[in-house]
């Protein structure tokens, strides 16, 4: 029997708020339910067929056994689709009061209020608020929930959807393809630079509600966008599943940065597939911080398809107690002069378990490419665990490869040194952890960086002895 862990969100003074769900499918999954989801969302036939095909693939796939333990997920006990409001609210005034209340209780950053029109917030399986800032619209930028984008921009949608992550890629990509709802769709026209980061806040707030959002970003030639997703979740009693798919297309000379701060409550299985397709001289940057969840399996990927394409993945994982963060990165070099950089930092505390899993492959065509991998692990005590599984498949002899890995312990001696300056243990640990992650936190927009430092400090305060 899985027991419900003590959740840190309670320390944040968040109390669960009850909602009136307008529509939901019965628990469990079958073809009928998949068809129902599609019908409810009034989708074109191709999408219904796509979902049904994906469902068959999901049924025929086994759970991965090489990573974290997923055997406790009870697929029959999950509600795969529900909508809290029937229509997407057009302005902030249309957002239901109880949802606004949740935002207030969560203390959603001021950023949201300032850039309200640039925010897309997901509540349960549907976007409840979405506004597009006027100047974004003027520039031809599309920022919609994915369901609406399917209706409004069918051509560009179909051209990219599931092209870099097909349903057959893995079990959870197949599941997401069958039942997806919500998520963001972004199109940045040629040469357009989006100055403010586009942001989305995700929440789950119902027992056993799986979140299967689907995000698709297309950055046309020479454009730039920074997308930020931050997750916070109130309390539940039983396990919850989150299996998202994020696809990014970086066209010639474009640059996309995608920042995630994942802080699901500690009963959530977070099994997300993220992948970018990068064309000539394009740049893709994933900044991926995983602090919450019970289990996370996530390996953001870049396929460096065009000459001179660059990929960077900054990965941060924090596992406390029974948490398992199985995270990493995947870089595929397909073209000459491509370069990739992976920087991974993990912190394990009080029996927490972090695994770094990396796969870098350089094809024979990718002449004169460079690969840089560095992964550092920090262990806060003897009970905690860190594993590293770096795999490199280099099939091109002109490749520059650099690989560094370190494991550091916050030993008694460092704590004694800091105590000798009058600093108490919990503060010393927080300082060392924040110092360790600093190179990654620097890359995160300020308001999120502050929130993340606060989260880490909160986690550290719970330390005893």
């Amino acid at each position, binding site marked *: 029997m899985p027991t419900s862990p003590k959740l840190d969100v309670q320390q944040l003074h968040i109390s669960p708020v009850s909602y009136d769900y307008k529509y939901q499918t019965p628990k469990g999954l079958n073809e009928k339910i998949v068809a129902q989801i599609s019908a409810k969302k009034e989708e074109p036939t191709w999408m219904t067929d796509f979902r049904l095909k994906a469902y068959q693939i999901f049924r025929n796939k086994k759970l991965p056994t090489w990573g974290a333990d997923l055997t406790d997920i009870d697929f029959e006990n999950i509600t795969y689709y529900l909508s809290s409001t029937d229509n997407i609210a057009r302005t902030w005034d249309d957002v239901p009061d109880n949802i606004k209340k949740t935002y207030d209780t969560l203390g959603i950053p001021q950023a949201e209020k300032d850039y309200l029109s640039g925010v897309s917030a997901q509540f349960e399986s549907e976007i409840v608020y979405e506004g597009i800032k006027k100047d974004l619209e003027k520039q031809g930028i599309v920022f919609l929930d994915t369901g609406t984008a399917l209706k409004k921009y069918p051509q560009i949608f179909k051209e990219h959807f599931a092209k870099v992550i097909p349903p057959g890629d893995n079990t959870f990509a197949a599941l997401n393809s069958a039942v997806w709802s919500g998520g963001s769709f972004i199109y940045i026209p040629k040469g357009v630079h989006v100055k403010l980061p586009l942001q989305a806040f995700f929440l789950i707030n119902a027992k056993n509600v799986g979140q299967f959002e689907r995000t698709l970003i297309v950055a046309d030639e020479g454009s730039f966008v920074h997308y930020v997703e931050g997750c916070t979740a109130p309390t539940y009693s039983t396990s919850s599943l989150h299996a998202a798919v994020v696809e990014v297309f970086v066209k010639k000379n474009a640059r996309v940065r995608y920042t995630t701060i994942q802080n699901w409550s500690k009963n959530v299985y977070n099994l997300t597939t993220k992948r970018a397709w990068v064309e000539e001289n394009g740049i893709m940057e994933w900044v991926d911080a995983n602090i919450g969840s019970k289990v996370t399996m996530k390996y953001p990927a870049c396929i460096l398809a065009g000459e001179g394409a660059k990929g960077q993945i900054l990965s941060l994982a924090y596992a406390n107690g029974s948490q398992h963060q199985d995270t990493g990165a995947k870089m595929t070099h397909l073209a000459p002069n491509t370069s990739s950089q992976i920087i991974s930092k993990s912190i394990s505390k009080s029996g927490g378990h972090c695994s770094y899993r990396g796969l870098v492959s350089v094809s024979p065509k990718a002449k004169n490419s460079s690969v840089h991998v560095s992964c550092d692990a920090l262990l806060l005590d003897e009970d905690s665990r860190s594993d590293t599984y770096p795999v490199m498949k280099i099939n091109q002899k002109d490749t520059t490869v650099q690989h560094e890995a370190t494991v550091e312990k916050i030993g008694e001696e460092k704590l004694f*040194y800091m105590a000798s*300056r*009058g*600093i108490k243990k919990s503060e010393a640990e927080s300082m060392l952890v924040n*110092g360790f992650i600093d*190179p990654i936190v620097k890359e995160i927009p300020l308001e999120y960086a502050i929130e993340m430092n606060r989260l880490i400090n909160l986690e550290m305060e719970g330390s005893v002895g």
Partner: protein
Amino acid sequence: MNNIILSLKNLTVSIKDKKILNSINLDLEKGKIYAIMGPNGCGKSTLANAILGHPSYEIHEESKIVFNQKDINKLTTDKRVNEGLFLTFQTPLALTGVSIFELLKQAQPNKELHKISEEVHNYAKELKVNEELLFRSLNQNASGGERKKLELLQAAVLKPKLIIFDEIDTGVDVDALKDIASFMNKYQKDTTYVIITHYNRILKHVNPDKVIVLENGKITRQGKANLAIEIEDKGYGNN
């Protein structure tokens, strides 16, 4: 006596059941300079760590450590230090991602950062510490001499009542030693110094009021500054 800042009574210390220090009795006065000398492995560093309350050292029950008229034996290291103790480390550890400013700000939460920063810069100039070093992770990629200077700099900012210098003179070149010694002399005022050293080197620049010789975990000799010279000439000898 009110003039006593630190008093050790029957201090017996073990590590993993091995007795390192045996019944040390010592009274240290305010504003005086003490040198604790002894051969390698005699228990000099253990003495420093025991006074600070390092968790790996077991202090025997009958022992007493009284600092500034307060029994500190049950206090954790950070609390002892906040009473006005300070230890400069023999081999200061590198703190990844933590600068000297952050460390000192955390150590003195009520002091304004700009004030700390100003002091750090001024002391750094006096100690001839490269400014660039201050903005890096503390002690990272710093030479032996630079590390020792940074220890001294922290002591100067925190202004403790008693400072234990654990081999501040080892791994330090002649010029750095002179900088360190003149800094120690300049800022001593009414601070008590306990200089733990193997050699007489530093004592040529910082003149001790009293020299205490530690051998096999016991105090074997005590004397004036000339005892240090005698030891330099004749060695510790057999006793």
